[in-house]
């Protein structure tokens, strides 16, 4: 009797779990399929990753539309996100190390954690607006530049890096710190070469997640990197980016540009998906590595 009820509960749970999986997977699959179908023509044209977009064109009788590629936007995204990572990883890491390794219960440490939490909830357009206002007031010549864009992306990335690095450092067992301390290893050496080493997979995960987030954002770039048709022209010049290209081209009336937008969107999805899968693999590896030691 009891067993039968338990069996029933089990079955219900399994069915519910399967349903949830389907509900989650359907949107993901349909996004991928739609992006591929609509972008296929552009994606499969040679030079998708190496050429600039072709001139606008909608097929009429007797004309053939060229697509070109998304090379400028791809370059721009790499440069924008690369610089943003160079800015936010050291800052986020330093904040996390201060909070976890040196902060103890200090109010300043709690303040950092709380600010990172608040900052991670700030809408991305506001991050762009903030940098736009700041640059306009202080460096008006380069308001619309790759540098501004990277700064705006950093505002989004810093809290992600900080919070995930904090979590990663907290998962390092205290016995590891004690072992180092008891050997007379100085705190900063132990932190840099033992604690950080043990937390590295978690930190890498956080960095990858923050990169994935930044790579997909258009809103903070609208008022900063601004976009151009030439791609990355140096950090003091406006720069294109994949999300900006998607935004511009998808709203245009030209069929070849719309196809490019879908192709670019799929590229973006694959990058972001790849990064988050990579981060899960890294995290799983960390769990394996630390198992068996208290």
């Amino acid at each position: 009797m009891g067993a039968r009820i338990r069996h029933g509960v089990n079955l219900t749970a399994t069915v519910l779990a399967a349903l949830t999986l389907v509900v989650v997977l359907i949107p993901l699959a349909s996004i991928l399929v739609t992006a591929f179908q609509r972008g296929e023509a552009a994606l499969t044209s040679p030079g998708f990753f190496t050429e600039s977009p072709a001139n606008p064109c909608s097929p009429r009788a007797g004309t053939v539309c060229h697509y070109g590629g998304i090379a400028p936007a791809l370059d721009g995204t790499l440069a924008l996100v690369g610089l943003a990572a160079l800015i936010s990883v050291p800052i986020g890491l330093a904040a996390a190390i201060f909070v976890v390794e040196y902060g103890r219960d200090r109010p300043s440490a709690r303040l950092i954690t709380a600010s990172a939490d608040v900052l991670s909830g700030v809408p991305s357009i506001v991050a762009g607006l903030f940098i736009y206002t700041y640059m306009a007031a202080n460096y008006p010549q380069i308001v619309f530049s790759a540098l501004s864009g990277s700064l705006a992306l950093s505002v989004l990335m810093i809290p992600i890096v900080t919070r995930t690095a904090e979590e990663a450092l907290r998962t390092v067992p205290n016995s590891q710190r004690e072992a180092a301390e008891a050997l007379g290893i100085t705190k900063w050496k132990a932190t840099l070469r033992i604690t950080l080493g043990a937390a590295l997979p978690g930190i890498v995960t956080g960095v990858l997640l923050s990169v994935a987030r930044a790579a997909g954002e258009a809103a903070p770039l609208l008022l900063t990197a601004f976009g151009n048709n030439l791609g990355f022209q140096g950090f003091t010049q406006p720069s294109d980016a994949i999300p900006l290209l998607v935004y511009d081209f998808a709203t245009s009336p030209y069929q070849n540009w719309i196809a490019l937008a879908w192709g670019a969107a799929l590229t973006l999805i694959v990058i972001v998906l790849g990064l988050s899968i990579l981060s899960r693999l890294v995290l799983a590896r960390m769990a394996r590595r630390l198992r068996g030691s208290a």
Partner: protein
Amino acid sequence: MDATKMAAVGLSASYGRGPAITDINLEFGPNSATAIIGPSGCGKSTFIRCLNRMHETAPRATVTGKVFLDGEDIYEQDPTAVRRRIGMVFQRPNPFATMTIFDNVAAALRFNGRHSREETDKIVYESLQAAALWEEVKDHLFAGATSLSGGQQQRLCIARALAAQPEVLLMDEPCSALDPISTAKVEDLIFTLKRTYTVIIVTHNMQQAARVADRTAFFYLGKLIEVNDTKEIFERPKEKLTEGYVSGRFG
């Protein structure tokens, strides 16, 4: 006891509330092993963690009194310098999880000073020998430290402490997480180590104290009740409390 390597004088410590140990006076001779025994919670760990200034790393911890090493108060010195002279082995093996066996043993050499490769290799070899682990790991020195069994990990931690070339070795219940065979190995090891080092070992296993220690100190409720040659403590204790504990009436 002819000479004193280390001595606690009027040592008290707390974790912010009431005292965990009160007014401990205890001397340790060179080349000998002293066992600290007593029921759990009586302050054994707190006491030996005061001896290498690890106690003060706990939140709200306080220490008063003095601890002399070769006649000088360690509380007047730089704590990291003190810890390099006084090794510690913990209750649960805690090898550096992300490092190889070799790197664990070499850690103190690499982080605390400059040593040539040859020197490092030599000290790692000698330390693993001294910790009776060399034969078991010599063919996979560059495997991860966590690939070892618990008993091997604990001997690795002993080797790691020895590689720092300390003068005193503190061991906090080093066998409590080990199986009987590993325990026997570590006990044999302590027996050898005390020829070279001042060994201070916390244990709640009285047979272990009787086997390895020259002197034994009995702690109860944060106080040192009695200290004497091990044989005396077990056969002719002077205090009623000691007698009650060693005869197994409480603890």
